[in-house]
């Protein structure tokens, strides 16, 4: 059992949870994730390890409630436990010294980006962070990211915070200014956003790393359910990834496979109590 020590809501239905998991806290590296199985008979849900404290034996997860299982997880009160957490899984981020890097987070992707951006900054890279969201309440972790970013730029669709528009608009400005053009880009967020960034950097030959979120079960390479196409090869995102070269990823296939269980998910949602259901539908797009 994995005890929940802290549970804060950062944005509408985005929670930061600190959980006791000593073995994982000790072994974890940036870019890795865990699989949470909240209760007997529940689904197995992959979640990025946002942060870890090996001394205290804790890990931090950032979770957006988008369906029945994530909702169950974020509604676990402090003092209660999650039944199973396995990890750390996946390959750690390859932290290199690129020079100037742009780290782009969209929506909850910002949370997944956070440990990576921090590791890049710690390795001596000059990090420009761009975060985006629908409107001001959906912008998360701005203060935390500011502490190590050379510059933090924000884009909201309604202009309620930072620049009005998408993260790609901000990125374009960086690319267009020769002194600011990044040597590498890390983009994490909704699939359409990652695809747009990859298309944007491709003509300039800027190395672009994305983090993929296919449906997973075991996270150990056993089921093959998480397969994605990268270049000509089929890869298992849980063991070969989750980070891949964005210029090689078949985003269309990823999006398509993510929709595989849409009917079941909708049915499960429709059976939830109304108050809970409303909560999710508000943030889901």
């Amino acid at each position, binding site marked *: 059992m994995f005890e929940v020590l802290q549970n804060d809501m950062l944005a509408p239905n985005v929670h930061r949870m600190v959980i006791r998991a000593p073995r994982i806290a000790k072994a974890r590296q940036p870019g890795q994730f865990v699989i949470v199985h909240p209760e007997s008979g529940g689904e197995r849900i992959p979640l990025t390890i946002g942060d870890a404290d090996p001394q205290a034996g804790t890990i931090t997860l950032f979770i957006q409630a988008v369906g029945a299982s994530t909702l169950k997880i974020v509604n676990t009160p402090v003092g209660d436990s999650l039944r199973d957490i396995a990890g750390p899984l996946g390959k750690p981020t390859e932290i290199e010294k690129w020079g100037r890097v742009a780290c782009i987070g969209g929506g909850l992707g910002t949370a997944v980006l956070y440990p990576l951006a921090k590791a890049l900054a710690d390795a001596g890279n000059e990090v420009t962070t761009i975060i985006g969201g629908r409107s001001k309440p959906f912008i998360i972790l701005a203060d935390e990211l500011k502490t190590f970013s050379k510059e933090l730029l924000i884009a909201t669709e309604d202009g309620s915070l930072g620049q009005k528009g998408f993260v790609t608009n901000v990125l374009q400005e960086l690319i267009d200014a020769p002194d600011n053009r990044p040597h590498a880009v890390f983009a994490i967020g909704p699939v359409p956003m990652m695809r747009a960034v990859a298309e944007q950097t491709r003509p300039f030959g800027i190395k672009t790393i994305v983090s993929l979120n296919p449906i997973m079960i075991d996270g150990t390479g056993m089921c093959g359910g998480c397969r994605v*196409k990268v270049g000509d090869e089929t890869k298992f995102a849980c063991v070969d990834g989750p980070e891949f070269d964005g210029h090689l990823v078949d985003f269309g296939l990823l999006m398509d496979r993510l929709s595989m269980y849409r009917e079941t998910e909708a049915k499960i949602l429709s059976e939830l109590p109304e108050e809970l259901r409303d909560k999710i539908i508000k943030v889901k797009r």
Partner: protein
Amino acid sequence: MNKKLTSKDRMAIERVKMPEQDPKRRNSNFEEVNQGLTEEQAIREAQRCLLCKTRPCVAGCPVRVRIPEFIAALAEGDLPEAARILLEENTLPAVCGRVCPQETQCEKVCVRGSKGSPVAIGYLERFVADWALAHPEKLPKENKPEPTGKKVAIVGSGPAGLTIAGELARMGHAVTIFEALHDTGGVLRYGIPEFRLPKRIVDIEVERLKNLGVEIECNVVVGKTVTLEELREEFDAVFIGNGAGLPIMLNIDGENLKGVYSANEYLTRVNLMAAWREDVPTPIIHGKRVAVIGGGNTAMDAVRTSKRLGAERSIIVYRRTEVEMPARNEEIQHAKEEGIEFILLASPIEILGDENGWVKGLLCQRMKLGEPDASGRRRPVPIEGDTFVLDVDVVVNAIGTRANPLLTATAPDLKLNKWGNIETDDNGATSLPGVFAGGDIVRGGATVILAMGDGKSAAVAIDKYLNQKN
């Protein structure tokens, strides 16, 4: 009374038929197909055994169950004694009695089989084992051994890991099992379906180990959560029984379409994650027409599962003929009774999709049998130009699994063969001192009983190693 039975009397008895759920009913539920013998049936079947002096059946069993002895006790109606003898050699008899390929092992060489049908050793084993599970109080109490002060780590809780854990604990060693998934049992839990092996049996076996003092920690992925090196530092010896959990892909077009599963994913969703139950959120595509590719136990389990999930047509597509199928006979017969269709001498060449990325068909190549290959089975060869399309909406790939490199990739000094399996000597010792291995990670996809046999022999070797280490 049985002593008075002459050989002629014994020969006159006909082999018992296993009571089964009606195929028409069972193909829509997940309850066990085989219902088990009654005591009367079991005793009568036991009387068919000729108690041969040469005991060929024992040699046919990989763990050398003392078959004539346990059967003789059963024939006498002495169930505690039958159970005691059985459990001496086989720690998971309720499992083996259900899933062992008896027809190629103990029953294959049974003398009774040369004139008629072999003694139903598997059924009898299951009967005695089930009796033992139901009457633990009638079995001799297990004495807690003197602790040796030695600690052994076991990686994986499949049949190999469970067996060696029990053996070592009985020798007084402190045993901890590390399991990657959130529940124990390995393939017994996530692969073999409820209708063939009720999970309650795995639960009871695991509970027995815990009572022996075995510690079990789930959610530990060795190679990720802890490394083999760390385990070697903390424990006096390590046994690796992490199975062969890596699906072999078909590598044909359309494999990434929605509705295409590896058997591992399909069965894990249904078994480990209980997708068959209405009250569980695990999603699975309920295909109307399902093609399962392969001819082994995994393929039979997947295809029969698809029927139970409501498929109108569930079809096995296999590139050789029924004779070459590696599945147990019983599974093939049961599948047929349940309305599973068999398309033989056919090999998939492409999975066809609709405009929304869902499976809509399976393009197959007709085959014929050619010359025997290395395994002695006749090699299937394509009949040029002879192809056909099966109209299906789910495809399950059950062509096999290989060694999963997750653990071994982080232990560069561990010697592997060219397929990625761990190399061991006959006692399970690997190239690293104090590290032993057995089961599917050494053999490739094999059987439950072979994995258990490996666990048993490695336990002896580890005990010896620990004593020498003193």
